[in-house]
């Protein structure tokens, strides 16, 4: 089971690439030109992420280097460890439903500090990829069409985030733990 998940992880992207290029060539699409055109978007995207990353990384680094983060983690870790949650992941769990770019900053910081192949690094990667920014989505979509009463939408979104975080912890522990 775990071997299959790791195998899917390594095969998925190259296989997808193969299918895309075969289909596109068969349909006589100018693959290279289209690729370049789409790639330009990537440059824009990376630069638009820059201020978000600078802001978040600086703020977290202040909290960490002052020693405040460590003190806070020491304070709450007995409770978290008792229920199986690594305390380092708490800031990410809090920010994830609120802002995607901010969460990306937190994930980056965790990967930089603990290493991408550490347990925390893998958990942060999985958590970042496995759920979307609930409050942002609700604001944008409901705001765009002028919905004033959101009813149970917020409840569903946030509970699903919580479940996603718990599911990430369990699956990463099972596969890489």
């Amino acid at each position: 089971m775990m071997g299959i998940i790791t195998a899917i992880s390594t095969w998925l992207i190259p296989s997808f690439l193969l299918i895309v290029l075969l289909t596109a060539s068969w349909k006589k699409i100018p693959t290279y030109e289209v690729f370049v055109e789409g790639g330009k978007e990537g440059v824009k995207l990376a630069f638009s992420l820059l201020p978000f990353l600078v802001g978040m990384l600086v703020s977290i680094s202040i909290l960490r280097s002052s020693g405040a983060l460590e003190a806070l983690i020491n304070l709450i870790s007995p409770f978290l460890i008792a229920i199986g949650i690594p305390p380092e992941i708490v800031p990410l769990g809090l920010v994830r439903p609120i802002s995607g770019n901010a969460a990306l900053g937190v994930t980056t910081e965790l990967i930089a500090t603990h290493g991408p192949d550490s347990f925390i690094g893998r958990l942060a990667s999985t958590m970042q990829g496995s759920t979307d920014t609930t409050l942002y989505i609700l604001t944008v979509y409901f705001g765009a069409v002028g919905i004033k009463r959101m009813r149970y939408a917020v409840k569903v979104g946030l509970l699903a985030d919580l479940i996603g975080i718990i599911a990430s912890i369990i699956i990463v522990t099972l596969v890489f733990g």
Partner: protein
Amino acid sequence: MVNLIWAFMAIVGIVYAMFNGTMEEVNKALFESANEAVKLSIGLISILVFWLGIMKVAEEAGILKILTKVMRPVVVRIFPEIPKDHPALGYILSNFTANIFGLGNAATPLGIKAMEQMKELSGSDTASRSMITFLAINTAGITIIPTTVIAIRMQYDSASPTEIVGTTIVATGISLVCALLLDRLFYYQSIRRKE
């Protein structure tokens, strides 16, 4: 909310450093981390350019359309309130397809179109059942390939940057199924309360 958290982290850090005698470390970390963030953003360009380029080719090759066709029968069942040939379904499907491939920028306008269509169906400024189901799926996330995360892992010399794709898919799947179940649960609860 994110403004509060962001400012709060820095404020707590600086105040704590005053009493903890770590101001020198804070001062150093401040500039180092800003520098690191810039280096990182530049490093991200490689995979973002590559992936968005490939996705553009996939789109032109009609692969997104094929996926939309495959998903249609399932989506019709998830949204029982939308008539089968209503344009809202088409937009919902294209939004899901764009999300699956991590095309966030393409997904948002399609999603807003879907919301407009659903609003026409309900004709009120209260969220309809279909709208909430649609957003539940969007907030749970349906991305299969987390491009940006893979890019960051590459930047920090991961031995296997893509090894988290599998765990991400499983975690996404679980949160998606739970979001749909919760959505149904709260919907039936809200009907019962009205009766």
